[in-house]
C-alpha cells in the first residue's frame, strides 16, 4: 500500500473516534438537561448472557392508548392536531374511501416526547384503568363479557399500581427547547427524541352506537432504549441479576416480578445536551415489605 493510503486509514480511525468522544464530552458538558431519580419499576435490569458481561437497564414507560385494559375511546393527547404539528399529512378526510390505505402508508417521523415521572400523567393512567374496570364490570352484569376478563383487568391494575413504571409520555413536539419551556421541571420531565407512528382507526358501530373514524399517534420506539451501566455502578445490579438467575426467575428483562415485590434499587440518570443519558448513581432500596413477607412465610 502506498504510504498516504496507510496514513489515511489510520487518520480516519483516529478522527472518527475523536469526533465521537467530542460529542460525548459535549453531551455531558455543563448542567444536565434533566436529572431524574428512577427505580427498578422504570429501569428494568437486562438479562444476563454468558457471552456478554455488560449490564444495561431498559427504560420502561407508558403512552396514550397503551395497555390492553386501559384503552380509551378516542386518540388521547396524541391526536390528529398534534400529529399535524409533528409534520404528518392528515389532509385526507377520514370518511374518504381512500383514507384507510393512505393513512396506513404514513411513515414514522422523528419527534421529541415529554415523559413525566409520577405526575398527573401517571395518575390519569391509573384513573383511566379504573374506569375501564368499572366499564368491564357493567358489561359482566349485562353478561356481555366473562368474569375472567374482570379478574385479569384487576390484576393488571394491581401490577400497574405496585410495580409498573410511573414514567408516562404526556406531550410531543418538533422543538425540544419549546417543550422544555412548557415543562421546566428538569427533575420530573424528560424530553427525548422518539419515533412516532400515525395510526388510523376506521369507523365502527356496535350496541353503544357509531364510533367515528379517528387518527392517533403511537410512540413506537426510542433511539436508545437501553442505558449502559458503567463498571463503577454495576456491582449491586450484578448481585441482583445473579440472584434472579439462581432463583430461576430470569427472563429477557426482569420485569415480571412477583406481586408483592418492591423495587430493589434506585438509579439517578442524567440527560445531557444531546439528550443522551448516563447513570450517575445506583443505590439499593430498603425493602421493608419484602422482609415482612418473608418473615410471615
Amino acid at each position, binding site marked *: *500500500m502506498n504510504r498516504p*493510503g496507510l496514513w489515511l486509514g489510520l487518520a480516519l480511525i483516529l478522527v472518527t473516534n475523536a469526533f465521537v468522544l467530542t460529542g460525548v464530552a459535549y453531551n455531558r458538558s455543563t448542567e444536565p438537561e434533566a436529572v431524574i431519580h428512577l427505580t427498578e419499576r422504570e429501569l428494568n435490569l437486562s438479562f444476563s448472557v454468558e457471552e456478554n458481561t455488560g*449490564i444495561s437497564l431498559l427504560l420502561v414507560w407508558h403512552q396514550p392508548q397503551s395497555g390492553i385494559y386501559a384503552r380509551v375511546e378516542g386518540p388521547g393527547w396524541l391526536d390528529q392536531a398534534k400529529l399535524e404539528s409533528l409534520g404528518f399529512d392528515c389532509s385526507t378526510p377520514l370518511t374518504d374511501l381512500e383514507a384507510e390505505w393512505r393513512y396506513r402508508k404514513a411513515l414514522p417521523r422523528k419527534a421529541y416526547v415529554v415523559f413525566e415521572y409520577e405526575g398527573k400523567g401517571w395518575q390519569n393512567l391509573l384513573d383511566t384503568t379504573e374506569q375501564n374496570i368499572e366499564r368491564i364490570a357493567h358489561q359482566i352484569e349485562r353478561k356481555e363479557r366473562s368474569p375472567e376478563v374482570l379478574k385479569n383487568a384487576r390484576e393488571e391494575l394491581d401490577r400497574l399500581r405496585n410495580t409498573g413504571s410511573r414514567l408516562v409520555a404526556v406531550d410531543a413536539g418538533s422543538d425540544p427547547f419549546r417543550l422544555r419551556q412548557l415543562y421546566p421541571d428538569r427533575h420530573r420531565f424528560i424530553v427525548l427524541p422518539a419515533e412516532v407512528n400515525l395510526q388510523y382507526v376506521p369507523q365502527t358501530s356496535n350496541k353503544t352506537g357509531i364510533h367515528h373514524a379517528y387518527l392517533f399517534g403511537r410512540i413506537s420506539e426510542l433511539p436508545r432504549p437501553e442505558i449502559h451501566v458503567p463498571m463503577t455502578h454495576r456491582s449491586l445490579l450484578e448481585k441482583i441479576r445473579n440472584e434472579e438467575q439462581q432463583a430461576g426467575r430470569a427472563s429477557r428483562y426482569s420485569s415480571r416480578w412477583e406481586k408483592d415485590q418492591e423495587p430493589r434499587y434506585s438509579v439517578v440518570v442524567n440527560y445531557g445536551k444531546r439528550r443522551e443519558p448516563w447513570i450517575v448513581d445506583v443505590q439499593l432500596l430498603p425493602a421493608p415489605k419484602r422482609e415482612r413477607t418473608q418473615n410471615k412465610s
Partner: protein
Amino acid sequence: MNDSNKPRIPLNRAHAQQRVDRIKAFQEELEQLEHEHNFALQDEQRHQLERHHEKILAELAKLFDVDTSATQKQMSMGMRIASFLGALALAASVFFFFYRIWGLISTSVQVLILISAPILAVLGVEIISKREKYPYFTSLIGLVAFACFVLNLSVLGSIFNISPSQNAFLAWAALAMILAYGYGLRLLLVAGILCLLFFLSASVGEWGGMYWLSFGLRPENFLPAGIFLFFLPAFAAHSKYPDFPGYYRLFGMLTVLIAILILSHWGEGSYLMLPPMDVKVLYQLLGFAVAGITIWAGIRWHWQGVTNLGSTFFVIQLYTKFYDWWWEWMPKYLFFLVVGLVAILLLNIFKRLRSHLAQASA
C-alpha cells in the same frame, strides 16, 4: 523472434494472469494443430517459442504469483475460500471476545481497546502485505481490521448511550474502501459498497422526512443508491484494479432489481400515493423493462455479470407472475408444464440471439 526483446510487464496481477492463460491456451492449440493437421514448427522456431514462453511465465510468477497450471488455480481458489472463512471466524471471535470482557473493565480501558484494535489491525495489514504477492493473509487481516472498526463505533455507541446515526455506515465504508484500494482487496470492496449503500439509502429516507432507522420500510430508498453505484465506475478510471468496476455494477443493479421485485409484490411499501394494486402493476412492468435493459447493457458493453443478473431477474419476475396468475386454479402438473415450455421458448430465443450476434461480429 528476437530473443533480446524483453516481455512487456503487465500492470497488475489480473493482466498477468490473463497473459498466462493466453499462453497456456496457445500452447494447447498449437499441440492440437500439430496432431490434427500434421503441422509442425521448425525445431529452432519451437525452441525459441518455448524459451520465450518459459521466460515470460517465470517472470510473471515471480512478480505476481500467478497460477501457471490448472492445479495451481484450484489451490488458489481453495486458499481464497479459506482466507474468507478464516476472516469471518476471526471477526466473530473479536466481537465475542470483546463482549465477554467489556463488563469487567473500566470505561477508559474499554475505549482504549476499542480504538487500538482497528489501528493495530490496519498496521498488521500493511506489514503482512509486504510479505506476500497475492493478498491471502492480507485479505484476512483486512477484514478483521474492518470488523474491529465496526465494533469500535458500535460499542462506543452502547457505552455512552449515543443515539444511532447513519453516519457510522459512511465511516465504515470509508475504511473498507481505503483498504480495498490500498491493497486490492475484493472482500473489503464489497463491504465498503454495502456500507455505502446503507448510508445513501438511510440518508435518502431521512431527506424524505422519515426517521432514518425505518428506511427499510420504503424499498425506493435503495433505488437512487443502487443507480449511483452502478454508474460510479464510469466517472472513475480503475486502471490498477480493472475488475473493481464489475463489483459496483453488480451490486448497484442487484440493489435496484431487488427493490423493484419487492415493490412488485408489496404495493403498500411505495412512496407513490396510488392504490397498492396499481403500484404492484407499475413495478412489475418496470421490473421487466429494467431486466431487459440490464441484459442489453451487459451484452452491449461486455459486462457478463450484469447480463447474467438481468437474465436471472427477468426469469424470476416471469415465474412469479405465472405463480400469481395460475397457481391457484391451474392443475399443478399443467402449471409446471407451462413453466417448462416457457423455459424452452426462452432458450430458443437466446440461442437465435446468440447466433445473430455471432454472425454480426463475424
